[in-house]
């Protein structure tokens, strides 16, 4: 059965509540047995500009969005000009007639224009954001979306009873008015069901926060930076009941050092930032590695370099996070491709950080962090906390001093937590011997420094073999035999999966190798899969093909074709399908 879709977009200056209008529409559909995917776009400002919320609704699970829209609801001229090219034949445009003027001659044939003075319905003295309830009322009448679903949603949305009643009243008044002007009642193309199995409507950052709480993370420290810091906001909101502490730090350098202090003292902790904040944390990343203190850090990428594009998406920090910090040390870089991986792999990363006592980076991007998707409840039944090797006082004999960095075949030594009897030691940012001492503080080391340095460095790298076996490094989707293999990482996954479905319907066999754990690079798994493949296409959201260079460095393999996008927008299935056809033609 073909999937059916309906896409609507609400746009206007910041302050008109277009994003919450979109969110209510998406949540309402999500609660009614349908599947929603909502993409927010907003510039880095508080008032003015052009905000939009695109909501794609389907009767089956969604992994991506497409640009063409069936309904456009707008509060500003800019929103009309910015989105007119997205109108599908037969689309409806609802616009506020006091803020938008449309020259009908410039509108393609077959588009229905519906002007309405939406702001007039706001009670005297009420804020203009209430105009979004008027827009929702008209939206329901014009599209057949059931208004009762939105009214139900407003009961949760507004905590103040007065506001709730006012907004519901605006919605119902406008709905009735618009309906009375139409020749017949519209029927929404997708079927709303009552009492459907509950699903979440959740974004990547929220999923990561939930995973952190489930993983027993008790502390976070951070400094605000879009699009990373909403992980911290959600932790503040949901964590209070779990004894979670959030400390806003004076800067990102302080934040990561606080996390290292907390982790040294035995608490699972998480930080979240974007590229610029991560840049400030880089020295401490190496400190965590050298001191072997577990660390979990989220970098939600945005456009760069420097301040770059604060609110737009990109996949251009991969080389940076894989190589960040001076010296050499193993680290884990995990790039989730969707909401489920944001949850399950974040949970796993907490375990990996503890088991291998290494810094771990969760690399997402604005698109994944900020786009909300319908998602069945996570299955937490089989999630088990693994803290790795911890010092146990009863296993220590009195003539055997505790050595924090004791050499072992797997490179991991039992970790003592401050407060434990018999575990006193020095953890250090210096290159050190088994007891944590730098050569200058230990006569024996001073005489034997080269050997101590080699042993200490090898210790870190000896962790790799067990670590590599312990992570689901690559995911493979699609048929075993294919005309084309796509290679990609991170949030491009959703658009690729939908493009593959469409390709399959047209008889084109495409499969997809997703690199989920990029560091340590899964050389063996990658090579064993790729050697059986025909043509390959590398897809990345950056200019230079950063995963491609990592693949080449590790395996010598170069993809046959590439598709790089760095225009501040996420990939959509249709452009990937077009590329697939181009490559195979």
């Amino acid at each position, binding site marked *: 059965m073909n999937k059916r879709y309906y896409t609507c977009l609400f746009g206007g200056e910041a302050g008109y509540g277009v994003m919450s209008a979109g969110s209510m529409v998406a949540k309402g559909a999500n609660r009614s047995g349908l599947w929603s995917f909502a993409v927010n776009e907003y510039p880095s400002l508080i008032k003015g500009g052009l905000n939009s919320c695109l909501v794609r609704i389907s009767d089956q699970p969604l992994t991506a969005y497409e640009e063409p829209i069936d309904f456009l609801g707008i509060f500003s001229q800019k929103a009309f000009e910015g989105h007119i090219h997205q109108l599908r034949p037969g689309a409806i445009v609802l616009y506020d007639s006091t803020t938008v003027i449309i020259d009908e001659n410039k509108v393609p044939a077959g588009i229905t224009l519906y002007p309405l003075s939406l702001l007039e319905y706001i009670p005297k003295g009420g804020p203009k954001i209430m105009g979004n309830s008027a827009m929702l009322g008209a939206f329901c009448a014009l599209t057949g979306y059931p208004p009762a679903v939105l009214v139900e949603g407003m009961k949760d949305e507004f905590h103040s009873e007065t506001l709730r009643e006012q907004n519901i009243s605006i919605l119902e008044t406008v709905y009735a008015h618009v309906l009375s002007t139409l020749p017949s009642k519209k029927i929404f193309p997708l079927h709303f069901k009552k009492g459907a199995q509950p699903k979440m*409507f959740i974004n990547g950052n929220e999923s990561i926060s939930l995973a952190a709480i489930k*993983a027993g993370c008790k502390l976070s*420290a951070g400094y605000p930076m879009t699009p990373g810091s909403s992980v911290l906001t959600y932790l503040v909101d949901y964590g209070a009941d779990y004894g979670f502490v959030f400390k806003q730090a004076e800067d990102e350098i302080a934040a990561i050092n606080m996390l290292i202090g907390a982790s040294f003292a035995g608490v699972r902790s998480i930080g979240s930032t974007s590229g610029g904040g991560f840049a400030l944390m880089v*020295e401490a990343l190496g400190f965590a590695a050298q001191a072997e203190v577990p660390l979990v850090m989220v970098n939600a990428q945005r456009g760069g370099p420097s301040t770059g594009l604060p609110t737009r998406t990109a996949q251009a920090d991969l080389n940076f996070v894989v190589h960040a910090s001076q010296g050499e040390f193993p680290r884990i870089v995990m790039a989730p491709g969707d909401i489920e991986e944001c949850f399950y792999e974040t949970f796993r990363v907490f375990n990996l950080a503890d088991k291998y006592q290494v810094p771990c980076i969760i690399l997402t991007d604005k698109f994944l962090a900020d786009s909300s998707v319908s998602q069945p409840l996570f299955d937490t039944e089989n999630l088990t906390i693994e803290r790795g090797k911890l010092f146990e006082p009863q296993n220590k004999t009195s003539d055997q001093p505790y050595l924090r960095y004791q050499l072992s075949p797997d490179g991991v030594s039992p970790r003592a937590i*401050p*407060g*434990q009897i018999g575990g006193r030691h*020095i953890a250090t940012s210096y290159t050190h011997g088994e007891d944590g001492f730098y050569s200058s503080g230990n006569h024996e080391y001073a005489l034997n420094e080269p050997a101590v340095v080699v042993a200490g460095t090898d210790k870190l790298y000896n962790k790799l073999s067990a670590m590599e076996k312990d992570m689901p490094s690559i995911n493979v989707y699609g048929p075993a035999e294919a005309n084309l293999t796509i290679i990609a990482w991170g949030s491009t996954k959703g658009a690729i999966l939908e493009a593959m479905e469409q390709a399959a319907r047209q008889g084109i066999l495409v499969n997809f190798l997703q690199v989920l754990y990029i560091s340590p690079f899964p050389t063996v798994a990658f090579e064993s899969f790729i050697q059986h493949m025909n043509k390959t296409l590398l897809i990345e959201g950056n200019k230079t093909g950063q995963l491609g260079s990592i693949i080449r460095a590790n395996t010598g393999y170069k993809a046959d074709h590439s598709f790089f996008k760095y225009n501040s927008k996420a990939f959509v299935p249709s452009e990937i399908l077009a590329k697939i056809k181009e490559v195979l033609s």
Partner: protein
Amino acid sequence: MAAFDSNVDYVPTWCAGCGDYGILNAWKKAMASLNLDLEQTVLVAGIGCSSKISQYVNTYRIETLHGRALPVATGVKLANHHLTVIAEGGDGDGMGLGMGHFVHTARRNLDITYFIHNNQIYGLTKGQTSPASDLGMVTKFTPPPLGNLERPINIVKMALSVGATFVARASVANVAELAALMAQAIRHPGFAVIDILQPCVSFNHVNTYQWYQQRVKPIEEMAGYDPENLEKAISLAGLWGEQIPVGLFYREIRPTFNGSLPQLSQEPLAKQEINNVDITNIMKTFC
């Protein structure tokens, strides 16, 4: 005393005559006088000559990055507020790279102690101007004829103005007094700072033992002394030259950051059970 002794296997690499020896001595005396449980004590050091004290004592210790001892100490304290947490480092480490952290740790009045070894010079990098170097000081980075063109940071005045709740200065020449102040600082419930004057015998040939000895004067003997009065403390803190006051400048009991968090009112975060955390209720809020 033995439990508070240094790690005998590890021999300090400080120069003969370095003030850090005196500070290490006072440190051990202070710990002994408080009878601190070493298993429940964490020393968080920066990087520099002074921070090497972490290699010669016997508590839990973490040698961090240059300038970053305070945020690491903050993380340790929030993770386990039952621990005694001491941060330590030099004037370069703390007042240069670490200045931002110093200001914010003070204003949040975290219940930790901060010992600053102040020799007004960078020692481990062999003699550059520090943020605490006097005007006109000639160093490798500020050669004659100009010398240092920047006013020094007065650590005591700085600490008082940004909200530290226990502020003292001591000279390493008087180990007994330093040890007594260290013990008081550790006992103080809040952010306690001691500016410890010490010579650098290798690279600071101006601020020597003699230079300090000729100038230090017990603050208790000075006119207008009142350790409960912030204005008076700041006024005395302004003295730096012919007379340098030493002793307790100011003490105030103010709610601490860690003490104000309901999450930390009982068991430390580090001791909480983390197996089987149930997130069903949060998931439902997304439905």
